[in-house]
């Protein structure tokens, strides 16, 4: 049953390309279309579904019903929102930079959709099979900083300027821990190519061994998250990913309680919808990359391939929603301090721990390395974290405050 769906999809692709054998130029076009069109459609649908999922999830967390009027269980709500956005008047402030006011949403959507191309959806199912896929993902990820700044600067409004400045500072300072926590994984799996990273997380010997139980666990136990440096790396990666996608504890650029909607204040109508979509799709892309690097991409026990990838991606997105429903927001300077003085040194330390783990595995075999790694590696990281937060004098360490009850 493994990768059954992926092979079917690849065959379908080859079949459609085969249709145009006698017109070579058209064939190249169809080949390119096949690589990009299904991806955009799938992820637009995923965006629609995720808005519904977010609103329903948040509602249930807050003990209310969430949208249930449009369609059964409110499933057509994203459609309704889309149409509403289309009909809304598109106000452009007169003193704003018309050209860049218009360009900002476009500039934000382009990297979002390119980044989605690098996700290894299934065995061989990759829109842009490049050798350095992961690196290209991070490069494209850094583009949306410019788009957010452009939006903030061009709408000529004090709040959006503040939002733009915050966004640029936040995204730059969280890109580095993001990349560094991925370095540990790349160092281990030996290549930047997404397919090889996923392959390195499957225990090949068990897979080939034929007996069902071994095959079942072979797909799971190899994931990087079960290794000490993998688990710590996953925490750093996920925290940095939240900041990169402007999601909850770090949604400072459009902190609605302080600077109204940050860089989105002056946008209305479909431009706002495009911003919204670009943000969700870049959140999906980062969740996808997190599953590829740490949760074993599309490898999974029974229905390996595309279904597992989608389940993992949506579950990570659900965790993002869960966090959005619970946590308050960090302040700008704390955000910066947290990135530079806490995440960055720990990510670098994590690379060293991964290195020692690699050599320990060579010397004492994987089981001993596994146990030793968890005890020593994770211990080092934990003490480093405590030391660092004491170094930054973070108030959470000054212990519980005692309140006396006076007569």
């Amino acid at each position, binding site marked *: 049953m493994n990768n059954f769906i992926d092979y079917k999809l690849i065959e379908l692709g080859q079949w459609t390309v085969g249709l145009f054998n006698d017109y070579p130029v058209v064939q190249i076009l169809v080949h390119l279309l096949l690589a990009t069109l299904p991806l955009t459609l799938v992820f637009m649908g995923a965006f629609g579904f995720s808005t519904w999922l977010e609103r329903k999830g948040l509602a249930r967390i*807050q003990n209310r019903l969430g949208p249930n009027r449009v369609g059964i269980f409110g499933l057509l709500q994203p459609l309704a929102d889309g149409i509403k956005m289309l009909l809304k008047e598109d106000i452009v402030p007169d003193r704003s930079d018309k050209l860049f006011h218009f360009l900002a949403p476009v500039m934000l959507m382009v990297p979002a959709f390119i980044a989605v191309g690098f996700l290894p959806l299934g065995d061989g199912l990759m829109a842009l099979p490049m050798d350095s896929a992961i690196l290209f993902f991070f490069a494209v990820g850094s583009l949306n900083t410019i788009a957010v700044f452009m939006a903030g600067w061009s709408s000529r409004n004090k709040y959006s300027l*503040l939002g733009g400045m915050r966004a640029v500072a936040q995204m730059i300072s969280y890109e580095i821990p993001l990349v560094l926590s991925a370095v540990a994984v790349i160092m281990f799996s030996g290549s930047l190519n997404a397919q090889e990273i996923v392959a390195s997380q499957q225990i090949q010997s068990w897979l080939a061994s034929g007996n069902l139980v071994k095959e079942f666990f072979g797909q799971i136990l190899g994931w990087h998250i079960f290794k000490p440096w993998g688990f710590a790396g996953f925490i750093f990666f996920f925290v940095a990913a939240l900041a990169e996608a402007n999601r909850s504890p770090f949604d400072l650029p459009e*902190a609605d309680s302080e600077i109204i909607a940050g860089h989105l204040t002056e946008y209305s109508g479909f431009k706002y919808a495009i911003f919204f979509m670009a943000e969700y799709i870049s959140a999906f892309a980062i969740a996808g990359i997190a599953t590829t690097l740490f949760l074993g991409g599309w490898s999974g026990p029974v229905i390996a391939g595309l279904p597992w990838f989608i389940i993992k991606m949506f579950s990570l997105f659900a965790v993002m929603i869960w966090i959005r429903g*619970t946590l*308050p927001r960090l302040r700008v300077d704390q955000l910066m301090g947290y990135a530079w003085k806490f995440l960055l040194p720990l990510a670098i330390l994590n690379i060293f721990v991964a290195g020692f783990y690699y050599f320990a595995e060579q010397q004492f075999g994987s089981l001993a390395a596994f146990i030793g790694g968890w005890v020593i590696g994770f211990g080092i990281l934990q003490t480093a974290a405590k030391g660092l937060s004491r170094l930054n004098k973070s*108030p959470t360490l000054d212990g519980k405050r005692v*309140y006396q*009850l*006076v007569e």
Partner: protein
Amino acid sequence: MPARGYHLSKDELGADILEVAMGPHHPSTHGVFRMDLKLDGETVVDLKPIFGYLHRNHEKLAEDIPYLGCMPFTDRLDYLCGMTNNWAFALSAEQLIEIEIPERAQYIRVICAELTRLINHCLLVGFFINDLGALGTPLLYALREREKILDLFETLSGARMMVNYMRFGGVRCDLPDGWLQECERIVGRFPAFLDEYETLLKDNEIVITRSQNVGVLTQEEATNFSITGPMLRASGVNYDIRKVDKYGIYDRFDFKVPIGAHGDCYDRFMVRMLEMRESIKILKQAIADIPEGPIMGNEPRVFKPDPQETYGRIESPKGELGFYLIADGTTNPYRYKVRPPSFVNLTALRHMCIGHKVADAVIILGSIDIVLGEVDR
């Protein structure tokens, strides 16, 4: 700790000061209240509060209406705690004419006041965390609990918020049967909600980093700024009017007063959480030994006090709510002055916000707990 109160017309790097009007229509100003902020980058350099958007001249209105007619207007002062506003006005008006208040009415007044304190504090904590950015989840839990208590008020006085329930010398109507048992059930279940609320918020790292050492107010500053209520107690001053004036029958209940030590936003949030637990203790005792009997003293046919002036005050959930009444022998009050706690607590806003970031200014305003109906009167 950022340098306190430094004044710069141009910041170091020559970029000019950004003037932002955090205007009447802003998601976190708890009503129509405007702050003219002068920002150097993200840091607040100067702050000018602007009031008056909700000013209805409540005091002029009351001068040509009989005393009893002013009672429904007191609900509109601090529209979150109707009962305590009524009680404050009733208390100061009762000083004008000798009226003895029956036991049962005193107990009902204490029960209603403490229920209002529960509503106000859990709502305030919800709004405070909402300003921190937690997208309404704690606020909606608080609103869910508030609904139950508002239903109690609806059955008792007929309206959820505009209760108009207290009269000079007692209360308007008696407790409907079954009300006390229902109230006991709700108060019994409140500590469980408070525990859940505290685990969600108390030692949440982000709440701690965001609100500790923010908007600090020392003891001397607090007394000098005439701050009252939980804000004063969070700075370490032990001054609770229920204990000082011993008005009503508060001296019969044993309850403690929580005192903070640092006087920052986190302490104000924690003092309010602990005060809710104290209110539950009072409520339990009051419900246990409420006597039977009349609910209205011997109220004269026409309320016509002879010329004098009096100042009655109670510990409303936001601070000291006082009524300064001058009577001139006619049925209308000659001068009717409200001493609103949130209006006076706002004097310290500018002092606390200078030197902090924009995000902190929003939280400090949230921790003061203002309601614009009371600020602008």
